[in-house]
């Protein structure tokens, strides 16, 4: 048990330094291999710009129909489990952002016709901030936010 905790601690501090250094160091400059990969959206510095670039609008409406499952406190900012689920019909895509990251847009999931509006993954968070989920439907963008506290040093403070 003790050893397991120590691993978490080590990973936690490594993760924080990884993302922390990231903030100051500059831009993502991937050699864009994929033509349809929304480079501008992923490089946008704030959530509004990212949504504009990705979905053509940032007019989101907060909705109870979008549910985010994420920990209240994340000991390791490098691995924050996030699940987004929605009951709305006709959801076309689900996007996940971490408002405190230097480039907030983390992932966007385009749903095929059979897909259930549900995705679960693990994301990196630079600091305590809201995790924002945006569900794209024919009638507009629905969003929800969930604050996640990212502790530095991993002792649960």
């Amino acid at each position: 048990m003790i050893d397991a905790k120590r691993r978490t601690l080590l990973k936690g501090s490594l993760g924080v330094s990884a993302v922390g250094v990231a903030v100051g160091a500059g831009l993502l400059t991937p050699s864009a291999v994929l033509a349809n990969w929304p480079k501008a959206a992923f490089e946008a510095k704030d959530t509004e710009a990212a949504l504009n670039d990705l979905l053509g609008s940032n007019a989101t409406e907060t909705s109870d129909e979008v549910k985010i499952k994420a920990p209240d406190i994340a000991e390791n900012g490098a691995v924050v489990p996030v699940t987004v689920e929605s009951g709305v019909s006709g959801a076309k895509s689900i996007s996940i952002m971490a408002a405190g990251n230097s480039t907030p847009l983390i992932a966007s999931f385009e749903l095929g016709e059979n897909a259930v509006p549900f995705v679960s993954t693990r994301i990196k968070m630079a600091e305590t901030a809201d995790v924002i989920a945006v569900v794209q439907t024919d009638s507009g963008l629905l969003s929800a936010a969930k604050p996640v506290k990212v502790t530095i040093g991993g002792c649960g403070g």
Partner: protein
Amino acid sequence: MAGNIKIRAKNSNGVTTVKSLMSHEMETGLRKDKKTGEPIPAHFIQEVTAKWNDQVVMTALWSGGVSKNPYLSFKFNGGAAGDKIEITWVDNKGESETGTAEIS
């Protein structure tokens, strides 16, 4: 570097839940090498395509903000035991990998 993709798919009450684990360093390009101070080049998965019997169920577009060795779970309506699930990722260097599994 490139490992395999682990996939589990299970159908329950007409809905198939797929869980997958990919092996990738997911380097943002923003980190620096602690010894040399040189930036570590970006290397992360940009696109993940999930297919059910050759029909695309979901396409994920990712940044380096997805955690190392990414976990991805999703659901879709339909699917039966023995159907094929195929997941392919492509990263920013053009490397790619495909994994398949059968729904149980």
